């Protein structure tokens, strides 16, 4: 059946007026074969492998976006969690490796490289500990290297010793980058139930179950969904879900097509399509505004969780039919600093840290790009991570924490992170201590949900 005039117009409207774009094409590269007894050799292997595999990533993606007329905003690389190839390396050597990754990202022209990571949800190996110790410096002296640490899963419980360390790591990273609004913390995520094929930053890494190289795609499109809903101001909630579903289907199909073309031209297998609505600071490209369009005066008020649950589910249903391989995080993102509606919600007092926490129960992924008062103690940061991890562990879903304790800033201040990372009002933390609980350490046992065999 030929494509109708109105259908062509719809696609063009989505791209030109409603910010439809492919948020990221991310090439996953295994670095397992780069391990070596001689650390100089490791650095060389890593640099060579990344710059060889991803040499054409950026030009090919740019060519495809030109041919199809849909922008691909970010080109990124995810790699094997670095802790797995550190072996006997020292902390200083691990930091050097982070610099090598930064150089490789520069050479290939990608905006971020993710995978300065460790999986310590049950225990911490020697290499893991080296990576943890290297994190604050690595994040503060590199520009494009992102790190993540898995501290819990439904099957293993939560490693509270690691959680305690992360509180300190985040605080140290904030201190080291305090001249720049503690920006180092924006490149770090703590995960519960991380996924191995997430194309989005800062939490992307190339998991152990993945192949040599793979190409995954993350779509976006809050603006498209918002505009579609605006055309049905009187629809009931069942119809609202239907409108979101249909829109998500179209967005996803476009994303999968472009992803497959890029993968084919790079001669790597197509991995997964991540169905996530990811906001940007562009006008109307906001998840919060979708919730408000559904009928909330301001995001964060009563009814927010219900609206978010409806939206998140509808996006998945539409996307699941549109793509053959759905993976990654696949759910709505609610990064505060990257979403004008969320920022407004906090400034108006309708959206709070507690509400954001509750929202993470029904959507991916977690507390994301939230600027906290610089006064927050390492134990408080660790306790925030523990709370989020508990939500993920019990509900068998991914949860994450990417918070930025901005040194020298207090509740009510605004910080500018710049670029895609946006700006955020500082949120205060509770004045009461969680220190005793965090100091206990140990492991929170896996919940009953883990016993499914």
């Amino acid at each position, binding site marked *: *059946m*030929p*494509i*109708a*005039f109105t*259908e*062509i*117009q*719809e*696609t*063009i409207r989505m791209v*030109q007026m409603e910010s439809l774009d492919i948020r990221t094409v991310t090439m996953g590269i295994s670095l397992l074969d780069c391990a070596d007894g001689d650390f100089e050799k490791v650095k060389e292997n890593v640099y060579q492998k990344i710059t060889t595999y991803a040499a054409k990533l950026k030009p090919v993606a740019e060519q495809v976006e*030109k*041919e*199809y*007329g*849909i922008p691909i905003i970010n080109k990124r690389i995810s790699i094997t969690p670095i802790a797995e190839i550190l072996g006997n390396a020292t902390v200083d050597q691990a930091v050097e490796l982070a610099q090598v990754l930064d150089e490789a990202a520069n050479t290939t022209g990608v905006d971020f490289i993710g995978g300065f990571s460790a999986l310590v949800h049950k225990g911490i190996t020697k290499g893991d500990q080296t990576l943890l110790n290297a994190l604050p410096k690595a994040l503060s002296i590199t520009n494009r290297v992102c790190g993540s640490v898995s501290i819990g899963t439904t099957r293993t419980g939560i490693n509270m010793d690691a959680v305690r360390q992360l509180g300190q790591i985040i605080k140290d990273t904030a201190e080291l980058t305090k001249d720049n609004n503690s920006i180092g913390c924006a490149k770090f995520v703590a995960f519960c139930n991380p996924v191995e094929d997430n194309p989005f930053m800062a939490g992307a890494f190339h998991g152990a179950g993945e192949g040599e190289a793979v190409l995954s795609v993350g779509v976006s499109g809050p603006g498209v969904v918002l505009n579609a809903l605006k055309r049905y101001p009187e629809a009931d909630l069942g119809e609202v879900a239907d409108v979101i579903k249909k829109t998500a289907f*179209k967005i996803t*199909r*476009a994303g*999968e*097509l*472009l992803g497959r073309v890029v993968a084919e031209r790079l001669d790597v297998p197509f991995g997964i399509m991540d169905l996530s609505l990811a906001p940007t600071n562009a006008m109307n490209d906001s998840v919060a505004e979708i919730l408000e369009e559904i009928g909330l005066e301001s995001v964060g008020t009563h009814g927010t969780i219900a609206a978010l649950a409806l939206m998140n589910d509808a996006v998945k249903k539409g996307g699941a039919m549109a793509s053959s391989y759905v993976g990654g995080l696949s759910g709505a993102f609610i990064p505060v600093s990257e979403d004008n509606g969320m920022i407004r919600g906090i400034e108006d007092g309708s959206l709070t840290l507690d509400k954001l926490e509750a929202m993470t129960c029904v959507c991916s992924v977690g507390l994301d790009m939230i600027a906290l008062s610089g006064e927050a103690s390492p134990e408080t940061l660790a306790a925030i991570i523990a709370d989020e991890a508990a939500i993920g562990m019990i509900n068998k879903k991914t949860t994450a924490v990417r918070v930025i304790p901005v040194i020298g800033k207090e509740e009510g201040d605004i910080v500018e992170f710049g670029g895609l990372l946006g700006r955020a009002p500082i949120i205060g933390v509770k004045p009461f201590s969680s220190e005793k609980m965090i100091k206990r350490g140990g492991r929170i046992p896996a919940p009953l949900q883990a016993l499914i065999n």
Partner: protein
Amino acid sequence: MQKRAVVTVVGKDQVGIIARVTNVLAKYQMNVQDISQTILQDFFTMIMLVDLAEQDKIDDLLHAFESVEKELGLTISIQLEDVFQAMHRV
């Protein structure tokens, strides 16, 4: 493989739009298979389906359209047809 692309032209209605646009297409040996146009509130909208004889010419074509865009105050875009098939057909 034969590739087709959708060319869309949007801008203020005036004399010579179709002539200028198809002139460029002819120069690059691109056959127009289908064409439809409408005028909405003074705005000219034209959608053409063209045979993209050589896909690697798309860069040159975009470049050639730039001067037409500037001269007549139009927005011209060109997209491979597959993307519309993917989005609007199951």
